[in-house]
């Protein structure tokens, strides 16, 4: 009776000037579990919460290496992310083969941005149902973090979070944004995990099973340039980092404070003392 007639394809505007298929795709990103990315002057990190479909199943991977110097975190349809990730791997490899260098991250992002936008403009195609955070290093300003949306929108960020309940993580990142630029590798990971914790539902917490951390870094310029290749850490490799932020929580945050909205502030302050 009151069916929406303007959401059958991604090429038709509604009378209000909206393209519903593109908005639904953005909605699919919000269904995915949360991923956080932060960039400093030397490193870019991605952290993610992995989900398992059921108790007996394994956890779905959230972080993927693309090339030596680039990695992605995904939120949304994993199968669509696979298409984009394969494309990005091919492009990075082709660039390496033709020019003998790491592909500049901005060039790579522009390619997937264009690829996704085309899907919103052709009858019979659909937008990708996945959002990405892309972390990488290049010779054009060191570490970078980019956000990618199914609409084809891409933007460079200092720090960002996408996925379910990611607003809580973004609030944490906004509160601490001034600190990120000067952060070292470990501090940046700690900030990422703390932002991630903000987005967890009440009775869930970070475990070695559900947490993924990805790091890429670069130091020096010219002849002294050294790249720490993008690497994903899972399982016991992330135990120490989880432990580090868990101690914080107990020290500076009580159970009753958790109910209140100002929980992140004391947590942020105690961290400064610890380090």
């Amino acid at each position, binding site marked *: 009776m009151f069916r929406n007639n303007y959401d059958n394809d991604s090429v038709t505007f509604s009378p209000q000037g909206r393209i519903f298929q593109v908005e639904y795709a953005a909605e699919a990103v919000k269904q995915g579990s949360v991923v956080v990315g932060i960039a400093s002057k030397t490193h870019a990190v991605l952290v993610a919460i992995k989900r398992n479909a059921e108790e007996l199943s394994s956890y779905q991977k959230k972080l993927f290496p693309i090339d030596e110097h680039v990695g992605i975190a995904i939120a949304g349809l994993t199968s669509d992310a696979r298409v984009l990730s394969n494309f990005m791997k091919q492009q990075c490899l082709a660039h390496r083969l*033709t*020019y*003998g260098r790491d592909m500049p991250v901005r060039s790579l992002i522009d390619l997937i941005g264009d690829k996704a936008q085309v899907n919103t403009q052709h009858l019979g195609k659909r937008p990708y149902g996945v959002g990405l955070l892309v972390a990488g290093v290049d010779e*054009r300003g060191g570490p970078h973090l980019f956000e990618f949306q199914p609409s084809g929108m891409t933007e460079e960020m200092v720090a960002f979070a996408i996925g379910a309940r990611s607003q809580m993580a973004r609030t944490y990142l906004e509160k601490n944004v001034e600190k990120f630029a000067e952060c070292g590798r470990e501090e940046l990971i700690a900030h990422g995990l703390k932002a991630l914790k903000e987005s967890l539902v009440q009775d869930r917490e970070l475990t070695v099973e559900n947490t993924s951390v990805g790091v890429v870094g670069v130091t020096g*310029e010219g*002849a002294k*340039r050294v790249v720490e290749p993008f690497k994903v850490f899972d399982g016991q490799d992330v135990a120490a980092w989880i432990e580090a932020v868990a101690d914080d929580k107990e020290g500076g945050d009580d159970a009753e404070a958790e109910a209140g909205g100002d929980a992140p502030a004391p947590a942020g302050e105690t961290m400064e003392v610890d380090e």
Partner: protein
Amino acid sequence: MDHRPQNWGRPRDDVYGAYDGSYLQSSGPKQATQSPIVTGTSVIALKFKDGVVMAADNLASYGSLARFTDVPRLRSFAETSVIGFGGDVSDMQYLNRHLTDLSIDEAYAAPSSTDTTTSPGAGTLNAANLHKYLQKLLYSRRNNFDPLWNQILVAGLDSSEAPFLASVDMRGTAFTSPSLATGFGAALAQPIMRRYAETDEQAAQLSREEAVKIIKECMKVLYYRDARSLDKYSLAVVTKAGVEISEDEQLEQQSWAFAERIKGYGTQTV
């Protein structure tokens, strides 16, 4: 009425006579360059302590005719590299336009275009990247049986800021060496340069002044013995500080005394 569509809209045969199809391209395989037409001769280059020196004369020959005497064959790329072209001049001009487009695209994307704190060319293609790209380009063209008829030397610095010098030819064959020469220079100049810098270690001992002197000496030998050469030439020096190209060098202190003693060529009857 003529019911054959192929005849509609054509001048009428009964008025203008039958159409002369010989004005159209005759059918047959597509023809790519079979040989170079206007050519440049040798390009020579030598590494030294802080960079690379490169030289090529300003002549574009039409066969054995010295047709154009003001054609510089060295160009810079992104203020960090020098490229020297031997072989076909029209293909050189095509590559020159192509590389200019590439350098503009790169300059817009690199931070050094907006950020004055970074060194010029930071984040853009260095000489090693450029050489790799040209090699892929020339190899792909030869695979389409439409080669770019050039031998190219690329000089600059690599990613570790060490002097870089490499060659690529019309087939995509690529190699590096402390000294390189294309065309006649490979026979006449290369042995002279190797006397001073046979290895990278020896090249790293050379000063800029020594390297320039050796290159100038080689250009003189080439002018003495290469009949497709000119005494006006371009000289480029590339270092960490950037690229300097001088396009109006003149060979000095020529001595043709040796020529009298040369026998056995041409129309002499001695």
